[in-house]
């Protein structure tokens, strides 16, 4: 079946990046990244089931530099996807759709993600 030649949207590279579009794609990006985190959770739980030795060898990775960077990235992604997700739920309820509010809540999500990540990582001993 031949695909219908429909007009294309303007190409992304000629668009000036805006907070709205950047946060939208970041929501997707963090969502995909967090899905990988879910797989790590499975590994951790299955490792826990495999016994103390396997568990300890898995835990060793969390204190390495790459472990800390990954954990920090997962924590930040979690908070961003979390706060921006709540923003989306409000939009779904028809609230906060005025351009000004969209920008205010957008910047709030970024600020909250950074602050909450720093607090969590501090108490978690990663920083």
């Amino acid at each position: 079946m031949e695909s219908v030649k429909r007009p294309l949207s303007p190409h992304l590279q000629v668009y000036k990046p805006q907070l709205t579009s950047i946060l939208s794609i970041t929501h997707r990006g963090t969502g995909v990244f967090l899905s990988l985190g879910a797989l790590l959770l499975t590994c951790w739980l299955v490792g826990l089931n495999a016994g103390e030795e396997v568990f300890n060898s898995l835990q060793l990775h969390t204190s390495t530099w790459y472990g800390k960077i990954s954990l920090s990235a997962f924590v930040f992604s979690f908070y961003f996807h979390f706060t921006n997700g709540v923003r989306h739920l409000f939009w779904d309820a028809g609230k906060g759709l005025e351009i000004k509010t969209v920008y205010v809540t957008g910047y709030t999500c970024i600020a909250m993600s950074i602050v909450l990540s720093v607090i969590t990582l501090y108490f978690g001993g990663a920083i």
Partner: protein
Amino acid sequence: MSLRSPLAHARGLGSAKEGIHHWWSQRLTALALIPLGLWFIYSLVVMTGANYTTVIAWLANPLNAVLMLLFIISLYYHAALGLQVVIEDYTKSEWQKIAFLILVKFIALLAGFSAAIAVLKLYLGL
């Protein structure tokens, strides 16, 4: 002239309510993940540096086991629904789309069930 009713003609051609089910499930799991996600992050912080025995004892607590199970179910369901939209938006051909959708669903089920059974097994002390 067709003797089929307008409804019979329309059946199977429209959205068949699939869209609303996906949309609603995505929001419902998002809602569930608000408290569950916060609980999970809190648990991770509390469990930092915990040894094997402590973690095992933590999962033996029914509250933690139940919340962990609910978290795993909501998380994988939410992730599968989200990845489905990403795949539908970015794959070029129909077979690619179907292949990736099946792959994501299989992985989500495999990883989700593995995690859930791991929690159950530890909780029951098997």
